[in-house]
């Protein structure tokens, strides 16, 4: 397998194609434009289809329609665009249709900034849209991980018939790194089961209907119990995280996504200065990796440094839940649009020790 020096957005786009993506619809918004630009040529080379939608809303609805026919489909956008897409994501989740959504987030609220940001934590992991549904949410810290997660996202989406949401930002999207791209999957091998998708109508048993309206609360209850069970299954089986230098850690940091890689540098720097630091870096934001925090030695450790590029902080609430409020939570946070610096993390940790 060859290694390539490639930009995050393009790596995710190529990984999507290799993961079987054959349909993309999107609308221009910075800082994710490389994804549609790349796919507008690349998808046609592999017999796929690309559409530049007339709007964010049209684009997510194109994904909704074509994903219902079993074609692996993706859209990407950035924070304000995701707000427009939210109703469509709700339909995809409510109809139990697989799809992949990339948010190369920017600072918010509203237009905010285009620089690196983590202001979309709640909007991605908690409440993408009204209705109480969740996506399977992952957040990469490196370009390699971004490519790997997008590649795998299509498998997860098909396995659970769910939208998979990749939350990243301009830091990862616009960074170039050396990446080993995953192999090309044969789309013939991964056409998802005919049991649910729109195929040819043969008789009444093969007629597919996608509709999220339920005339009675009892009918909705059945769907929603199934949804809750799905999320429990994820909590059990799918929590992912990286525990970096945690074995002997006396100082614990936690961060995800682009802040996660900076916190990692801070841990290395602290170690170089003789401080036994470690990092818990969630990779899945939903299901949140509670298990990662169970291994903390609560007899010895009484505080955790939560690094996040969001003001006010958001991610810290999940950390507090996962650690059952047993620690002091020290936020090291910058606003979306301001990249948190290794030095400031190191200084804050040393100051609070």
């Amino acid at each position, binding site marked *: 397998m060859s290694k390539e020096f490639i930009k995050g957005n393009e790596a995710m786009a190529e990984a999507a194609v290799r993961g079987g993506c054959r349909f993309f619809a999107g609308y221009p918004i910075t800082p994710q434009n490389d994804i549609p630009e790349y796919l507008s040529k690349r998808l046609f080379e592999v017999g796929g289809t690309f559409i530049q939608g*007339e709007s964010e809303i049209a684009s997510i*609805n194109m994904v909704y329609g*074509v994903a219902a026919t079993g074609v692996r489909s993706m859209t990407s956008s950035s924070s304000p665009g995701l707000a427009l897409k939210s109703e469509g994501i709700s339909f995809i989740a409510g109809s139990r249709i697989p799809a992949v959504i990339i948010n190369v987030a920017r600072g918010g609220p509203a237009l905010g900034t285009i620089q690196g940001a983590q202001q979309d934590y709640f909007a991605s992991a908690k409440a993408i849209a009204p209705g109480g549904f969740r996506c399977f949410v992952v957040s990469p810290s490196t370009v390699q991980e971004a490519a790997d997660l997008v590649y795998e996202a299509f498998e997860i989406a098909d396995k659970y018939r769910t939208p998979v949401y990749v939350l990243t930002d301009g830091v990862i999207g616009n960074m170039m790194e050396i990446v080993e791209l995953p192999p090309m999957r044969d789309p013939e091998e991964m056409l998802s089961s005919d049991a649910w998708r*729109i195929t040819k109508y043969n008789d009444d048993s093969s007629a597919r209907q996608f509709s999220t309206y339920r005339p009675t609360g009892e009918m909705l209850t059945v769907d929603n119990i199934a949804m809750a069970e799905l999320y429990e299954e994820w909590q059990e089986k799918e929590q992912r995280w990286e525990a970096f230098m945690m074995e002997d850690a006396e100082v614990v940091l936690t961060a995800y996504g682009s802040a996660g890689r900076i916190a990692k540098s801070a841990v290395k720097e602290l170690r170089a200065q003789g401080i036994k630091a470690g990092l818990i870096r969630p990779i899945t934001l939903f299901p949140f990796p509670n298990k990662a925090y169970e291994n903390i030695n609560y007899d010895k450790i009484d505080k955790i440094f939560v690094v996040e590029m969001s003001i006010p902080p958001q991610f810290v609430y999940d950390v507090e839940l996962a650690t059952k409020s047993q620690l002091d939570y020290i936020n090291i946070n910058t606003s979306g649009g301001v990249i948190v610096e290794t030095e400031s993390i190191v200084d804050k940790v040393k100051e609070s020790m």
Partner: protein
Amino acid sequence: MEKIYERPSFTSPAIGMGFCPGCSHSTAHKLMAQALDKYGLRDKAVLIYPVGCGGLGKDWVRLNNIVALHGRAAAVGTAIKKCNPENIVISYQGDGDLAAIGMAETMHAANRGENLTVIFINNTNFGMTGGQMAPTTLLGQRTTTSPDGRDIERHGAPFKMAELIAELDAPKFVGRFALHDAKNVIKAQAAIDKAIRMQVEGKGYSFVELISLCPTNWKLNPVDSAKRVEKEILKEYPLGIFKDFE
């Protein structure tokens, strides 16, 4: 004795359609079903339903169907057709759906010349939500949100969707028909047949607007509703074929 007119195959034989008495959604469903039966396309058809009364049809048809978000049927249909060209994709939409919230998707799908059949139910109001003013509401027409009648100063003039779409370069067949009497139903049937046949032949985008009865929200019985179409609506919305590239 021979049956010379019977129920088309895609509507359920067991249950009648649940639209109100005299509602043209039922008529439009019948015509779509007859066209698909005529060309033997039921197995390949994908019906895109809107949000609104039209979406209720899903409970009585027996073929693949998908309910789009409000106004987005043309976008959903675009993608399904592009990735599955063998499917016969019909985007079935009402006037709130197609001409208000979904105007962008409607116009762009038409302007791209997608190989789709769009069936547009124009009953001059938002039916399901209780008869509010729609983009197609006639001047002077009283609705629950234009209680003094639609006023051009306050609300603007009615949208003439068929004429608007016929102005674009890409659409191949655009026309307005009515469903209030048998003579007009026969013409509408011919238009729907043609629109679907053109899709089969890959000829491109077709748009069939159907002036429809909504007796419940018009607060008229079905027979008087049919008279209203003849007397009032057809003056504002002339029938005819506005574009035919065949």
